């Protein structure tokens, strides 16, 4: 009873003091949107949500590595509102509007699907709400339009395909033939299109054996694998992700698809810890940037990867890295805007102006908001091959490509840039 009384008294005091605290430091309310249900929850949504939980907790406790050591954003604690990205675009847009106009968030960080990002960008502009996309890949967002309030602190998907083609050139030399197996929707079509175009730039004589396009979440790939085995291409490209990727590995590996040819899995990093026993040595894995096994050994990565693993008993994957990077980038912009605002809380416009053309560092290394009129990040990327060491996968033969080599320059569309021979 005595203990209970103490708690009650403490509660009353806290309640009495609360208004003062609110006056001094109104929290920064951030809306986080990612898949919490459906097939994209497990590989991307939940690892990203976990990253947000970890980073926000650390920042609110003032435990971020310098220069991210200030509590929350510029001394104000962060308050999170998390919602699910699943559902048709109509409901994604409705929920975004609710987030902004009903929950009154100060900023929005989110969106994994490229379709969501394309749809949300003009709405963010209409509502004048600072919105940072953390994961979606399509370059169309800033190539087809320009925005004031919309940013993306992760690189586009172009560099995944271009980087993969460079890696083939640098490790295999001249290859005779390529083949692809990609999901039949925008992501798979674009990934294969960019990879095929890049390979043809590097070697116009390369022979395209087959491009398999099974429907999304098909799950059964017996016939596709037979076709890939039968055509005998030297290099096989796949941008499959998660469930489909894992099913593909489980079905292709026992049939020897990985034995004599090079298989490139552009998002393979999400599966590398789960399927360490099934991914044969020499498989090329991508992580959509310098994330996960390709992350540099810097103070941010040591803080993030160790802390994340300690909290969730699993290493962060690239979606986690992208989320951490998105929060840190916005924090850097917020605090920069606050400094030029005389220490007062910045407006959305000021945060946006501060993030334009900003360069900052995170667990994935150096990030520059260099293209899309300063709204789109570029980073270096890396590819490597798997090697099983004592049951764990490590990456060997790692090749790193600087940001300018795998991203188009300002104002050039990525497809034109690839077809034009990667001119800087």
């Amino acid at each position, binding site marked *: 009873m005595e203990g209970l009384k103490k708690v009650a008294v403490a509660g009353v005091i806290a309640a009495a003091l609360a208004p003062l605290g609110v006056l001094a430091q109104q929290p920064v309310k951030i809306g986080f949107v990612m898949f919490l*249900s459906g097939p994209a929850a*497990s590989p991307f949504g*939940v690892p990203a949500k976990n990253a947000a939980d970890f980073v926000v907790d650390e920042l609110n406790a003032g435990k971020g590595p310098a220069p991210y050591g200030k509590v929350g954003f510029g001394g104000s604690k962060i308050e999170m509102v998390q919602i699910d990205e699943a559902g048709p675009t109509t409901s994604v847009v409705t929920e975004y509007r609710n987030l902004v106009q009903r929950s009154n968030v100060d900023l929005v960080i989110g969106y994994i699907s490229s379709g969501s990002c394309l749809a949300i960008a003009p709405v963010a502009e209409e509502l004048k709400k600072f919105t940072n996309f953390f994961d979606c890949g399509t370059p169309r967002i800033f190539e087809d339009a320009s925005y004031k309030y919309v940013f993306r602190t992760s690189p586009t998907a172009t560099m995944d395909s271009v980087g993969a083609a460079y890696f083939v050139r640098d490790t295999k030399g001249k290859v005779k033939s390529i083949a692809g197996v990609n999901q039949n929707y925008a992501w798979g079509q674009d990934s294969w299109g960019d990879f095929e175009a890049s390979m043809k730039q590097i070697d116009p004589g390369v022979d395209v054996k087959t491009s398999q396009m099974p429907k999304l979440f098909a799950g059964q790939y017996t*016939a596709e694998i*037979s076709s890939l085995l*039968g055509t005998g291409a030297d290099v096989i490209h796949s941008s499959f992700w*998660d469930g489909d990727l894992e099913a593909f590995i489980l079905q292709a590996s*026992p049939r020897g698809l990985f034995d004599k040819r090079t298989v490139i899995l552009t998002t393979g990093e999400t599966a590398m810890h*789960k*399927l360490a026993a099934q991914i044969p040595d020499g498989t090329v894995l991508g992580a959509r940037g310098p994330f996960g096994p390709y992350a540099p050994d810097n103070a941010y990565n040591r803080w993030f990867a160790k802390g994340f693993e300690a909290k969730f008993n699993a290493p962060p994957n690239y979606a986690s890295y992208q989320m951490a990077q998105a929060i840190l980038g916005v924090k850097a912009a917020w605090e920069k805007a606050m400094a030029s605002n005389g220490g007062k809380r910045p407006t959305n416009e000021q945060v946006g102006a501060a993030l334009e053309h900003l360069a900052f560092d995170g667990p994935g290394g150096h990030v520059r908001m260099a293209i899309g009129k300063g709204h789109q990040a570029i980073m270096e990327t890396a590819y490597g091959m798997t090697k099983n060491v004592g049951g764990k996968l490590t990456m060997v033969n790692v090749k790193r490509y600087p940001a300018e080599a795998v991203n188009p320059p300002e104002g050039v569309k990525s497809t034109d840039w690839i077809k034009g021979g990667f001119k800087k």
Partner: protein
Amino acid sequence: MSQIGPVLVDGVIYSAWLFIAAVGLTLVYGVMKILNVTHGSFYALGAYAGASLTGAWLAKGYPPMLSYAVLLGGAILVTLVFAPAIERGLLRFMYAKDEVVILLVTYALFLILEDTIKLIWGVNPYFVAEPYALLGSFEVGGLKYPTYNLILVGLALALSAGLAWVLHSTKVGKLLAAVIHDPEMSRALGVNVDRFYLVTFTLGCLLAALGGSFTAPTVSVVPGLGVDVIVLSFAVVVIGGLGSLPGAALGAVIVGLVRSVSVHYLPQVELFVIYSVMALVLAFRPRGLFGLAEPRKI
């Protein structure tokens, strides 16, 4: 260009998988006139139960050859936990309603089960790859296939033979025919129609769960696994004729072979194959290949 051997083998393997995944749906519809959307949920439940139980079995170091029995046991267990409860607790109060309303009831249950699965197993994937590779492999036209695929084909054949035997050669099958034709009359003659419904529904769900648990070793078991299976199995049984067992088999074989041919020779059209076959069949045979006309009531 691919050889004809692998094209056929791929087609047969896919057909077997389709048949196992879809046959329960046609059974439940044939007897109860329910288009059961929870079929997809039971497929997913079976996959989760199969993967997690077999995973635990292998982790304990028990004999891997028995993992096939664990896959079977997992499907039975999870079906017995959920299916009778759903039929007795909810569906039986709905039989007087429209076919479409019952379909929506099962859709609502499907939504509830989707989140139930997430609450039980979380969102992280389950794998149990061992049973897939355990039996070695065989070769056709120079291509390697895991022997496990033959288990699927065998299971499909055994299921169709077993169901055909029960329906045509046993007393239960004859009584069932009476229940299908006229439930009220059968009841009046002393047939326990309620029990037939309970057993049919449970059996239909068990078949879905079996499909899921025997697919589990070849895939990653993730949330949303059952969604696509619903429409796919609908398509297969509609092509064959709703409620017809030979129809489901024929539908599976047609879809399986057509898909395999398209993957090998014309991968661009794979996306349309199933629905185009379904629309074509329905356009010329409005009740599917083996569908029976309903008596007209004046």
